[in-house]
């Protein structure tokens, strides 16, 4: 520890601290622009100059290491003169039109200028004008305002992992910009808006929507991936106008992924369903709530009476709230049907009944950052879990070795990753190889099922890396969980973790992937799971927040089943063409912004939130709708007066973290022979993954929302006779679609990457399996 005195206040700080760190601990504010606790030190703005005893010149607090006995004066005459001098320089070329700037009211330059600037400018020369840049659909630029702090540049390099911005030219002509004609395409790009201390980078969707002081700030939780980022939702007249991160070091730190930040646009979209609708005599018409609920109740009773309760299937989105999931399963079970599920994209359910508890991350999110070895199996990591990937990116810089077993070789922008790439059907084999190599290295018995396995060089490297660490984590990504041999992958992961003395878990796909288990929104007894409910069509379906054509493992099969059903009730915030085609009733339920609710994130953290806006039109919170439907059906136990009461029933005593989290599985693994032929690799593109992002116009203009192409490597293209083809026809089973072709060297031989969850590929059916590709 080092002794330091700041403005006469003594304190001890850790070796290696800067004056800025020390001041922070002392509760002293030192003005700054370029400094940011999560970014490397640039020391370029010079706003943080302070006086240090015995130093002839003022020193930048952000970059000056504390020396023992140092005496620092942050507000001495010398310090203030230096700070004021810098402020004057910053302002000479900065437009002084705060009233029309979008940053007005939340601008660090404006705030500090009040204290450090002088009223009249001594600068009489012409001000610099800088051309604006097109950074894409999300970030707006007003580059004349830029003060060259390079926070945005460092963010892209260090946090997002790919240098998409730079400071070109030099001196006064310097310009902050992406490469010529390039945009900023990172899935984390919106954070540069928060980082920019001035109005140079602002939110494009928010542009001119409101002044900050007109906005109410309300807390919420992101409804997308399993992280559950904490949000500040800004609202004016019950309209959500902007979403910002609520800092939470344990979860999202100070960041948000773009989908968490910009998906709110969907709740303001034209596609909102604002009134219940009922189809009668083949005609859709608006209806009163009472009529619509009666319709459903009658239809359900009818089906139960004629076909038995098993003829009813209930599917809930994993993006629904815990309360909605709980009531949906309660409703189903009280009707007598155990056919309830939220695991829409899963295809292997053989672990049902063999699980010790709800699958989860296996550790706290923050603990991820302490691992020194990480293996992730089957994950489009960066796109599926942008901020978890970001954590691993930072760990890798500190020396954590990250390994990936994947069907693609997409760059996760994580330094020095070890990678084993194989066809989907080879993933169990590849993981098995690692398990075998680790067992061998540890001198442990090799499982009988692995005796025939030959360890490839890539697997051996991964094993060597894992064995060399002291704190490893093994994780299954979305792809592994969706895999037809997910059970085998889980069993292998469990064994690997055991051999390594490591922890293992799953990266939760959706906001309530853990919550679904907690809410018991899974089949029990002879109940059917999500896949079975479509493979063995039901007579009646309750679809809660689900768009099966895009959200399920085999959308085509789902749609076929729905079309044949006697009654399909859709509870949704949106009206879609697809639903109008297969549904009989549409009930407008609140999106996350208009209801209270709870998400249990991938680490099992219970995060409840309130509505930030009034429900639109006749929309009602989902939990209320289910409660009333329960009443209309005269089902017992539907007396809840508040969502809190529902939550209490669902959580049974758990407060901060859910109970019953356990990744233990009681299953043997079974390495099937690898199938011959051409295999589909289906990713779920980040901006098609759920109903909200699909309807957020700005996200839909982002590069990641480009229409999916068919991707194969050059060898596969040659083998399939596709050389030089621009478009191809992909056939899966009886279905076929026509798509653009792209050559992708990151794919294994025999793999054809065709995204799921997109209208252009929905006809194809299962996310896994064989397909054929021909020139179009």
């Amino acid at each position: 520890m080092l002794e330091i005195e700041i403005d006469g206040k003594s304190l001890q700080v850790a070796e290696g601290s800067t004056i800025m760190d020390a001041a922070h601990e002392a509760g002293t504010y030192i003005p700054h622009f370029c400094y940011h606790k999560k970014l490397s030190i640039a020391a370029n703005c010079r706003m943080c100059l302070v006086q240090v005893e015995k130093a002839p010149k003022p020193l930048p607090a952000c970059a000056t290491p504390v020396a023992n006995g140092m005496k620092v004066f942050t507000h001495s005459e010398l310090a203030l003169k230096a700070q004021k001098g810098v402020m004057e320089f910053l302002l000479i070329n900065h437009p002084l039109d705060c009233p029309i700037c979008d940053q007005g009211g939340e601008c660090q330059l404006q705030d500090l200028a009040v204290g450090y600037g002088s009223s009249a400018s001594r600068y009489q020369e012409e001000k610099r004008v800088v051309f604006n840049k097109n950074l894409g659909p999300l970030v707006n630029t007003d580059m004349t305002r830029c003060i060259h702090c390079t926070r945005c540049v460092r963010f892209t390099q260090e946090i997002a992992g790919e240098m998409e911005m730079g400071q070109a030219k030099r001196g006064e002509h310097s310009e902050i910009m992406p490469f010529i004609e390039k945009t900023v395409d990172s899935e984390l790009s919106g954070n540069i808006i928060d980082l920019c201390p001035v109005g140079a980078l602002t939110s494009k969707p928010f542009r001119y929507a409101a002044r900050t002081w007109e906005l109410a700030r309300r807390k919420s939780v992101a409804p997308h991936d399993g992280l559950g980022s904490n949000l500040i939702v800004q609202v004016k007249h019950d309209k959500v106008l902007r979403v910002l991160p609520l800092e939470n070091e344990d979860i999202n730190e100070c960041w948000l992924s773009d989908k968490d930040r910009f998906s709110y646009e969907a709740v303001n979209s034209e596609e909102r369903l604002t009134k219940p609708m009922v189809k009668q005599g083949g005609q859709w018409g608006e209806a009163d709530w009472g009529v619509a609920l009666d319709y459903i109740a009658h239809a359900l009773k009818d089906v139960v009476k004629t076909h038995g309760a098993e003829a009813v299937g209930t599917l809930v989105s994993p993006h629904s709230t815990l309360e909605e999931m709980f009531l949906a399963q309660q409703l189903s079970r009280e009707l007598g049907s155990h056919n309830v599920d939220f695991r829409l994209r899963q295809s292997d359910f053989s672990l049902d009944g063999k699980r010790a508890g709800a699958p989860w991350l296996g550790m706290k999110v923050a603990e991820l950052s302490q691992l020194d070895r990480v293996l992730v199996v089957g994950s489009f990591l960066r796109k599926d879990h942008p901020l978890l990937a970001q954590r691993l990116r930072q760990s890798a810089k500190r020396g954590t070795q990250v390994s990936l077993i994947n069907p693609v070789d997409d760059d996760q922008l994580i330094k020095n990753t070890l990678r084993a790439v194989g066809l989907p059907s080879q993933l169990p084999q590849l993981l098995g190889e690692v398990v075998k190599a680790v067992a061998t290295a540890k001198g442990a018995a090799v499982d009988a099922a692995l005796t025939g396995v030959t360890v490839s060089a890539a697997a051996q490297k991964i094993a060597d890396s894992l064995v060399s660490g002291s704190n490893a984590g093994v994780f299954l990504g979305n792809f592994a969980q969706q895999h037809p041999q997910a059970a085998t992958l889980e069993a292998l992961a469990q064994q690997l973790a055991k051999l390594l003395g490591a922890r293992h878990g799953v990266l939760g796909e959706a906001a309530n992937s853990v919550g679904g288990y907690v809410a018991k929104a899974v089949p029990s007894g002879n109940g059917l799971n999500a896949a079975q409910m479509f493979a063995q069509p039901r007579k009646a379906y309750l679809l809660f927040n689900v768009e099966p054509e895009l959200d399920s493992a085999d959308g085509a099969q789902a749609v076929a089943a729905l079309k044949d059903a006697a009654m399909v009730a859709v509870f949704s915030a949106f009206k879609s063409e697809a639903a109008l085609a297969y549904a009989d009733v549409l009930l407008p339920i609140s999106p996350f912004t208009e209801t209270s609710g709870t998400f249990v994130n991938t680490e099992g953290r219970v995060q409840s939130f309130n509505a930030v806006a009034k429900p639109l039109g006749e929309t009602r919170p989902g939990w209320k709708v289910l409660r009333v439907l329960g009443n209309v059906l005269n089902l017992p136990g539907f007396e809840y007066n508040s969502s809190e009461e529902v939550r209490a029933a669902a959580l049974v005593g758990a407060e901060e973290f859910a109970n019953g989290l356990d990744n233990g599985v009681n299953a043997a693994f079974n390495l099937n022979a690898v199938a011959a032929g051409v295999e589909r690799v289906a990713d779920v593109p980040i901006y098609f993954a759920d109903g909200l992002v699909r309807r957020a116009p700005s996200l839909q203009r982002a590069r990641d929302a480009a229409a999916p192409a068919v991707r194969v490597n050059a060898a596969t293209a040659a083998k399939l006779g596709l050389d030089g083809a621009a478009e191809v026809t992909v056939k899966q089973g009886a279905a076929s679609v026509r798509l653009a072709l792209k050559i992708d060297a990151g794919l294994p031989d025999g793999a054809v990457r065709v995204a799921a969850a997109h209208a252009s590929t929905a006809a194809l059916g299962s996310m896994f399996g064989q397909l054929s590709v021909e020139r179009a």
Partner: protein
Amino acid sequence: MLSQEALKLIDREVAKYPADQKQSAVMAALAIAQDEKGWLARETIEYVANYLEMPAIAAYEVASFYNMYDLDPVGKYKLTVCTNLPCALSGGVHAADYVKEKLGIDFNETTADGKFTLKEGECMGACGDAPVMLVNNKRMCSFMTPEQIDKLLAECK
């Protein structure tokens, strides 16, 4: 995009640096590319960046930071005249004026026939030989008098 010879030259530069520091060769690589292409178009910079496995914007930062890279087309002969104070004291500015008059162009302009581009240079580290001019970044011409300049312009075919 670049010829085999150019790539060979770039490889020779890459070999000067530790194996994991390919980016160190970017200045040389851009210079080589510029020699071959005449100037650095967006595609050229991107190509060099890819070749050296570095972000395109990082290569662009370099290309736009150093004076001697041309991000716009230049004439067949790029003449750079140093007008900094030590040179100016011995005729640097006057030499530049003379060239301007002869070619009918100002700094940063190219003659209509595409032959000459004139640039104002900063100190070339040759102030003792003022006035000095640099031809195409490579050839330094010293003690330029009106006659010398005439001769140089005539030589440039």
